[in-house]
């Protein structure tokens, strides 16, 4: 029998490319990050009923459909000028908190873990989840899978489906939560809180107590002073589901705070000739090139950015960890890109605590789950925090509610300019004249980019955290001298 061996290429036409260019002295002169973009989605939506958007939009992305579903649902609330009921808001936030638990836990153990637990220059064959489990134990691996399964159950129970939830409607949700399922959700939330605390302990033991890693986190190579963006509640505390978008400057001072419908007053998009994807920036600061600092409109929207942009966490245990992080890293804001991993774990704890609060809320099983819209639709904007950054959906319809125009700014896109800065600076700090370019060394550049939890090509089936990326290094003549492919 002939054995067929398949030689798969990436299922997407494109893949991420990092190109590093050296000068005559062998130093890094420039570095570019190219992200593939699946185009045509906005056009695809034109002419369709606005009510279909929560179902269609979440199919953009195989990794965070819940974020697109809720951003679209909130845009419909705004479009139809209808305020969801209190119970509906809480059910939406409960589902969304469960989603954050699964997503952030997966990122830490699958994506960040291999670099820190196995070491950034360990062989690629070991620098993966299997290597992590080999080192920290099978029980932790089982716990990760269990956490994901339990929270997927919550998403399925509240959202109506395991993938692609169907519960978001303008003015509310389609389904109540039963007392039996509330009790089970509460138990899962309790376990989630313990799992998050355990994960923070692992981070402390393996990263913070390891001088080499801590020095790497704090090094200038992985540091940028930028503006920071995140959704905050009425007390300026981190909120994933609702609130206003707050931006702080590189000194931590509030720069602007805006409602979703004001996003175009605050953001513009820069087009560069070498990439299809646009670079959002702060309109009131302006685009001044790929530089950081107060004069650059480049901002970041990441877990660390959300913590920097807020005055604290809305739950007690997460607040303790928040204070500990800033006390350890020298106060707010923290500019160290790799500290994003720490912030992500604090958000994991916040999400689990918020799940617990909501599952114990007397309103959560209430029957009042929807206000019926009665207004004629015109225009609506909805914003949530996706795990990877602030997610904006904007729809304009005709009087029948058919989409005339839609615009999206997705999580990773917010960070495109900052990721480009980060890659260039990491390359400049790591590659010098005479440096032998190894896979491990290129991984040290790549890991800076991975801290953003980038989600390229919003329709891949990629396991979160494992991204198709190619890193190439060119000499001053433009000749390729080394490359690493991860696909």
């Amino acid at each position, binding site marked *: 029998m002939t054995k067929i*061996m*398949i030689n*798969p290429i990436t*299922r997407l036409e494109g893949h991420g490319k990092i190109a590093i260019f050296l000068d005559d002295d062998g130093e890094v002169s420039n570095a570019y990050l190219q992200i593939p973009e699946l185009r*045509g989605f906005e056009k695809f939506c034109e002419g369709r009923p606005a009510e279909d958007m929560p179902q269609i939009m979440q199919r953009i992305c195989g990794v965070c459909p819940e974020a697109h579903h809720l951003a679209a649902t909130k845009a419909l609330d705004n479009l139809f000028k209808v305020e969801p009921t209190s119970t509906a808001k809480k059910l939406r936030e409960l589902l969304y908190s469960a989603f954050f638990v699964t997503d952030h836990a997966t990122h830490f153990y699958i994506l960040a873990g291999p670099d820190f637990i196995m070491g950034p220059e360990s062989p690629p064959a070991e620098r993966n989840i299997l290597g992590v*489990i080999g080192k920290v134990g099978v029980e932790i*691996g089982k716990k990760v899978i269990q956490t994901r399964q339990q929270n997927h159950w919550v998403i399925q129970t509240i959202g109506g489906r395991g993938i692609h939830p169907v519960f978001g409607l303008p003015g509310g949700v389609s389904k109540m939560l039963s007392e039996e399922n509330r009790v089970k959700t509460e138990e899962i939330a309790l376990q989630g809180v313990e799992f998050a605390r355990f994960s923070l302990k692992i981070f402390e033991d393996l990263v913070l107590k390891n001088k080499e890693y801590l020095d790497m986190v704090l090094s200038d190579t992985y540091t940028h002073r930028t503006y920071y963006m995140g959704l905050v509640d009425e007390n300026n505390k981190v909120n994933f589901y609702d609130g206003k978008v707050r931006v702080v400057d590189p000194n931590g001072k509030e720069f602007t705070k805006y409602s979703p419908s004001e996003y175009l007053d605050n953001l513009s998009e820069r087009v560069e000739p070498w990439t299809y994807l646009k670079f959002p920036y702060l309109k009131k600061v302006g685009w001044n090139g790929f530089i950081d600092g107060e004069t650059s409109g480049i901002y970041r929207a990441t877990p660390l950015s959300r913590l920097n942009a807020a005055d604290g966490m809305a739950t007690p245990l997460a607040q303790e960890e928040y204070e500990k992080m800033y006390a350890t890293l020298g106060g707010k804001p923290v500019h160290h890109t790799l500290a994003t991993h720490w912030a992500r774990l604090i958000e994991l704890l916040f999400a689990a605590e918020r799940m617990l609060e909501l599952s114990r809320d007397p309103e959560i099983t209430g029957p009042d789950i929807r206000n019926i819209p009665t207004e004629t639709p015109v225009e609506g904007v909805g914003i949530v925090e996706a795990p990877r950054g602030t997610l904006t959906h904007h729809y304009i319809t005709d009087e029948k509610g058919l989409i005339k125009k839609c615009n999206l700014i997705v999580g990773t896109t917010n960070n495109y300019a900052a990721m480009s800065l980060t890659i260039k600076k990491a390359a400049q700090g790591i590659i010098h004249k005479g440096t032998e370019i190894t896979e491990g060394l290129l991984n040290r550049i790549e890991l800076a980019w991975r801290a953003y939890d980038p989600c390229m090509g919003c329709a891949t*089936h990629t396991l979160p955290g494992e991204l198709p*990326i190619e890193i190439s290094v060119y000499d001053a003549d433009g000749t390729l001298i080394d490359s690493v492919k991860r696909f």
Partner: protein
Amino acid sequence: MDKTLVLGIGNSVLCDDGVGIRVAAEVGKRISDPAITIAEACQGGLFLLEAFLGYDHVVLIDAIQTKGGTPGQVYDLQPENFISALHLSSPHQVDFSTALELGKTLGLPMPSSIDIVAVEAGDVTTFREKFTPEVENAIPVAVEMVMRKCPAHTNYIRED
């Protein structure tokens, strides 16, 4: 009673990317058996691992792009066909292999057999709900191949 999962994976609004979901749905129209679950997924990796748990047999249906492949070609594959790429960070197949390895390492209740029916895709970058003609024509072939993977249940095929 052995439990079988027929799982279509893909994006149903991204042209040929969604062919696995369509084939699974077509199979679902032909089979009515409590021992067979028809499902769809939009992610690979750990999600697939979790979806597989508790099933004895899995038939995974997906789009694939191979070097020099002809759109519409239907492949009958096993997980071993992808093992050579284990530990690299491919967005699709390798994650699948790593996920299976992870399931075994953790001692999870993994299926005893996994079949993969893959359809060579022509276009996986255009948002549209129709397949390319080559892939549309390949759907009956893929459906038949999936049906043959469930031989114990062919008695339940409905006459359309």
